[in-house]
């Protein structure tokens, strides 16, 4: 069946709305984050609430964009890199909204929205692919199971990566401010140190304690890791049906495995003396880096069986 071009066009328009709403929301969160510490917190709070409303509006447009794309092409809307990226950011925003409904994590807003906007921007420009049918290799019900799991885990890992970066920043700040007072070399130097500290410190005060951020990152990874494991296994089952073997060290398989190992190392590090905290956090960021390699580098640079990018 040929693609329905008017629906596909509607989907593209909705995506533009989505990105605009997310970008505005990001500004709102950033405003709250930047001005919330000083006296004008009422105005800052309004900016934060407006940002939440914009996020929800953007999310609705995002769901509509993905759905119309699916109807336009008469199949699941995650058949190439453009569609996949859109889904991953949708999951990241969903994870953020779910967290927001349960605990006060509005401080995360700007930091979740920034990569999401970047991701969607990249998807809509560089990775964009015209609406079209799937190649036969993708024509299987496993695309629903395997790819949905991969999308869900990737979106959640994205959120955990953001939280982990914040954790590392906050942790460093806590260590510094708890440490000995800076030795004064001269009046100018002392003033500079103090000025720098209060400015960054103001933003840092706004963030929850590092222990809270660490637990939040862990909770998100504890959700994403089994989902990622399932995605890899579902991929293996599909590979067994499509390519006659469940594992063949194809670059995509290998990088998924490396990503899995990195997050497994993170989970072990949390239970190992001397590795808790910062070192474990670094491992989880390495894991996220591997996920990005798995996604961008493997799909576009390395040649393998997962070359469905539809780019170029």
């Amino acid at each position, binding site marked *: 069946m040929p693609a329905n071009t008017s629906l596909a066009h509607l989907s593209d328009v909705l995506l533009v709305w989505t990105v605009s709403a997310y970008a505005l929301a990001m500004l709102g969160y950033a405003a709250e984050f930047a001005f919330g510490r000083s006296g004008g917190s009422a105005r800052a709070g309004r900016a934060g609430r407006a940002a939440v409303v914009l996020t929800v509006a953007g999310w609705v447009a995002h769901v509509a964009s993905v759905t119309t794309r699916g109807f336009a092409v008469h199949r699941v809307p995650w058949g190439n890199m453009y569609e996949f990226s859109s889904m991953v950011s949708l999951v990241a925003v969903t994870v953020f909204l779910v967290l927001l409904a349960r605990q006060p994590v509005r401080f995360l807003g700007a930091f979740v929205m920034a990569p999401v906007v970047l991701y969607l921007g990249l998807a809509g420009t560089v990775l964009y692919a015209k609406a*079209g*049918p799937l*190649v*036969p*290799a993708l*024509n*299987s019900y*496993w695309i629903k199971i395997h790819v949905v799991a991969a999308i869900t885990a990737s979106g959640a890992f994205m959120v955990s990566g953001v939280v982990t970066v914040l954790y590392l920043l906050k942790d460093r700040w806590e260590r510094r401010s708890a440490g000995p007072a800076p030795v004064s070399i001269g009046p100018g130097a002392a003033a500079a140190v103090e000025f720098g500290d209060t400015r960054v410190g103001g933003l840092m005060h706004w963030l929850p304690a590092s222990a809270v951020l660490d*637990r939040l990152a*862990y*909770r998100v990874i*504890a*959700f994403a*890791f*089994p989902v990622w*494991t*399932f995605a890899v*296994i579902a991929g*293996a*089952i*599909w590979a*067994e*049906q*499509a*390519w*006659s*073997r*469940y*594992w*063949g*060290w*194809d*670059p995509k398989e*290998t*990088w998924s*495995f*490396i990503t899995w*190992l*990195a997050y*497994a*190392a993170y989970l*072990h*590090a949390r*239970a*190992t*003396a*001397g*590795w808790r905290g910062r070192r474990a956090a670094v*491992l989880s960021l390495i894991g996220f880096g*591997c996920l990005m390699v798995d996604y961008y580098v*493997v799909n576009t640079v*390395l*040649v*393998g069986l997962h070359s469905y990018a539809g780019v170029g």
Partner: protein
Amino acid sequence: MTELAEAAKLSTAPVPPQRQPGQGLRRNLRQAWRQLTSMRTALLLLTLLALAAIPGTLLPQRGLNPVAVDTYLAAHPQLGPFLDKLSLFDVFAAPWFAAVYLLLLVSVVGCLVPRIRLHTRALRRRPPVAPRNLTRLATSTEWSADAPPAAVVDAARLLLRSARWRTDIRTEDDGAVSIAAEKGYLRETGNLVFHIALVGLLAGIALGGLFGYKGTVLVVQGQGFANVRSSYDIFQPSRLYSDSQLAPFSFMLQTFSASYQPNGEPRAFDAVVDYRATPDATPALRHIRVNHPLSAAGANVYLVGHGYALHIQVRDAAGRLVYDKDTPFLPDDAMFASHGVVKVPDGLPKQLGFTGFFYPTFGVTPFGPQSTYPGLRDPELDLAAWQGDLGLDSGAPQSVYQLPVASLRHLANRQLSPGQTWRLANGTTVKFAGVDQWATFQVAHDPGKRLVLVAAVLIVAGLLVSLRVRRRRFWVRAVPADGATDARRSVVHAAGLTRSDPDGFSQEFDSLVRRMKD
């Protein structure tokens, strides 16, 4: 271990290695074993395994693309052989790669065995005694109750039992009664199941690697395949494979059909076969498609490729049919421009051969003739006729897709459409009778597959349980309010302990305490 430390020990995780008793070699060995099975080593090996896998994705690998490896070796005459010596073109079969995962396996098993023992013991043991001073724990509270200590604790026990806590009541010397409760043993069970399943997964992979087989065969429409080793074009047995593993199934390729999008990208493939599980079975009609292998007596048959087979008829000058066959041509590009060779060794005064190029949809471009669409819209066949000794009688093995043109005499060239006949100068006629399709099938048998699947399911299940369930302890101690043993009132202390997710636990703790106060 102090009482409090004992109460706080919520996991069977190994304690970091300490100085061991004993002497000399024995002590060193024990120390080394402790070191190998420690969490720190597991962490190191996990990282090492990840690092070791990376070159396998950056350099071409023989197992995936042997041609790319040869190209790389030719392009890097200095570096290439050096990398090859380090097995960097066979990373996943390299001894150093195996060393890392085998060490990890030993480390996991060495860590698992004591933990399984500890966990089964913990499952049967009473929850640890309430620490003397419950208020020293981070999550704790106290209140006074209008009931004697025994009644308070009995009520607490009922409540905890209904929430499926394991409980244990102790009466203490000073008339106080305490209850120790524990919950969430499943966390460690899940953790152990996950790690045992990992070992099972490796066992399954090994089983497949030792006893499986894999083979590829090209079948032209209307022809058949029987699962014996000599039928295969390529056959890859495993190390401990024996021919008795080949199930006696067979099939005949009735039709193969392919459909394409207007731009030539494939849309769907379908191979219809007559399948027999055994030679005496009645044939059954089956479809083999991409993503839909045929399950054949323990093996799977996959559709892995396709192309065109050209029906060529050759007659001698007297009109006698000397050659009448479907000859498979191999595709060279996505539009299925294909090349092939026809060999006519018998029936003519001199042996005759043809090299050919086939275009399913013929088009002329600045670069010469090309195929512009993979479907049969305007098929054309370019043939070159060659005469001489084809070399078939020498006994040396020869590819069916190659002709030794260097030692042959070139006769003429001709382009043919289906149905057209070409008369050579010596009276021999060549007829392009028609186009058929062929498909390549891969047959794979992996006896470890089922074990791998079961292990994979257990891996996910174990992981979910171990990351979702929290192990936690809860204690209540009721002390007689006025110091007398038959007091009517008591002072109640409650405390709880968990390692993971303290936020969630403090809510659970508060709700338990609230219900106890009511």
